[in-house]
C-alpha cells in the first residue's frame, strides 16, 4: 500500500478486486439477514452493526479508494464519524442517566401521546389485525377526520397533581 500515489499516475484498481468486494458485500448482506433470524438478545444488535461496519469499510477503502489515496481524505472521513460518535455518546450520557438522583425525573409522566386515547377509542378499525401487523392488510379505515383530530389535540400532558 503506497501512502501517497506518485504525482500524476492514477491508481487503477484491478477488475477482480471490484468484483470480489462486490461479492463479499452481497455475501455479508445475506449473512446479516440470516443472523438476525437467530435470537441472540443484545448480540443481535452488536453482530448486525459489526457486519454493517465491515461492509461500509470495504466500500470506503476500495470503492472510494481510501486504501490507495492520500491519508488526508481518510482523516476527513473518520473525523465525520468521530464527531458523530461524540454527539451521540455525550447526548446519551444525559438521556440514559437522568434518574441518577431521583427515580421520578427519569421517565415521562405519560408514556403514550394523547392521540392514542382516541386511537384506542376506535378499536373496531384494526382490532382483528392485532398481533400480526405486517400481514398483508387490505382495508385501511384511517379516516381523514381522525388524523385531523390528532392534529388538534395540542395535548396538554397530565397535570402534576
Amino acid at each position, binding site marked *: 500500500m503506497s501512502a501517497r500515489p506518485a504525482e500524476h499516475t492514477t491508481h487503477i484498481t484491478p477488475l477482480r478486486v471490484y468484483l470480489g468486494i462486490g461479492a463479499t458485500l452481497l455475501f455479508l448482506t445475506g449473512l446479516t439477514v440470516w443472523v438476525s433470524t437467530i435470537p441472540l438478545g443484545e448480540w443481535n444488535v452488536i453482530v448486525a452493526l459489526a457486519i454493517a461496519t465491515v461492509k461500509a469499510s470495504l466500500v470506503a477503502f476500495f470503492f472510494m479508494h481510501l486504501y490507495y489515496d492520500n491519508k488526508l481524505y481518510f482523516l476527513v472521513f473518520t473525523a465525520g464519524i468521530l464527531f458523530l460518535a461524540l454527539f451521540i455518546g455525550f447526548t446519551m450520557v444525559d438521556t440514559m442517566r437522568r434518574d441518577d438522583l431521583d427515580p421520578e*425525573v427519569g421517565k415521562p409522566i405519560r408514556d403514550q401521546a394523547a392521540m392514542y386515547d382516541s386511537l384506542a377509542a376506535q378499536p373496531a378499525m384494526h382490532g382483528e389485525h392485532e398481533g400480526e401487523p405486517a400481514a398483508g392488510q387490505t382495508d385501511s379505515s384511517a379516516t381523514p377526520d381522525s388524523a385531523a383530530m390528532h392534529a388538534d389535540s395540542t395535548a396538554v400532558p397530565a397535570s402534576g397533581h
Partner: protein
Amino acid sequence: MDTTSTMFLPQTGSTVAPGVDALFNFLLYLSAFFFLLITGLAIYFSIRFRRRKGEPARLTPNLTHNTALEIAWIVIPTILVGILFVWGFKGFLKLSVIPKDAMEIKVTGQKWFWSFSYPEGATSINELVVPAGKPIKLLMSSQDVIHSFYVPDFRIKHDVLPNRYSVAWFDAPEPGEHNLFCAEYCGTGHSTMIGKVKVLSEREYDDWLSTSVMSGEGMNPAEFGAKLYVSKTCVTCHSTDGRAMNGPTFQGIFGHEVTLSDGSKVTVDENYIRESVLNPQAKVVMGFQPIMPTFQGLLKDHEIDALIAFIKSLEKKDEESGE
C-alpha cells in the same frame, strides 16, 4: 449568617446560598485580579513601548518563546480552573441531592402563573408558602411549555418541563419574602409569571394552612371574588377597566352578548362564565387567542360563584357610571 445583599448578589435566603456566594466571590476576586493584571500590563506596555512622534520604524527584538513563562501561564490557569470545577461540582451536588426528610410540594407552571399544592391538600397560586427551617422538595411539571422556577435569593433555579417531573429543593432558615421568577422564556406573559415565596415561622405556617382555603366567610361574594380575581391571577389577562389584555376585559360584559371566534354569539351569563373557567377553549371570544388554561381543580365551586358575583358587580358599576 449575613443575609444582606451586596453589589453583585441579592440577599441570601436559603441554607445553600452562602456556599454559592463564597464561590461567586472567589470567582469575582480571581477575575478582578486577572483583569487588572492583563489590562494593567497592556496599558503599561502601550505607554512604555509607544512609537514616539517622528520616530522611524525600527527592528524589534525577536521574542517568540519563554519556556518558564509559557509553562506558568498554562499550569496556573489549569490548576485554578481545576479548583473551580471541583468546588462548583460539590456545590451543584448540594443543590441537587434532596434531603430525605424534605416536605414535598407540587409545583405546576403554566402560561403564565405558578400553582402549588401542599401535602395537606391546600393549594395556592403565585405564592409559595413554606415553613422556615424545614427542607422543602419541589416536584415540578409544566402544563404547556418549558418554564423555569427561579428564586434569586435562594440561588436555586430549575427548568419545569411538560410531561416530565423535575425537582429542586431549598431550606429557608429565616421568615421573609422572596421574589419568584420564571427564567425560561414562555411567551407573552413570561415577565408577568412572577410570584413570591413566603417563608413563615412554623406557627404562622400552620395558621396559614388552616385558613389557606380561603372560605370567603364574612365577606360578600363580590368582595371575595375581587380577592380571588387577584390571588388566582385572573388579573394578569383580564382587566376591570375596559382595556383588552390577553383576554377580554371583565368590565361591563355580564348580561351582554359577545361574538365568538366561530362567528356565533353568546350571552355572558353564569353558565358561560363557569364554562369559560373550566373549559376555556370551548367558546373563545373573537379577536382573542385560545390561550387560557383551565382552572378545573384550582377553583372550588363557591369560588367560581364568587368570581361570577364579582364580574356582575363590575357590570353594575358600569351602568351607574352611565356610559
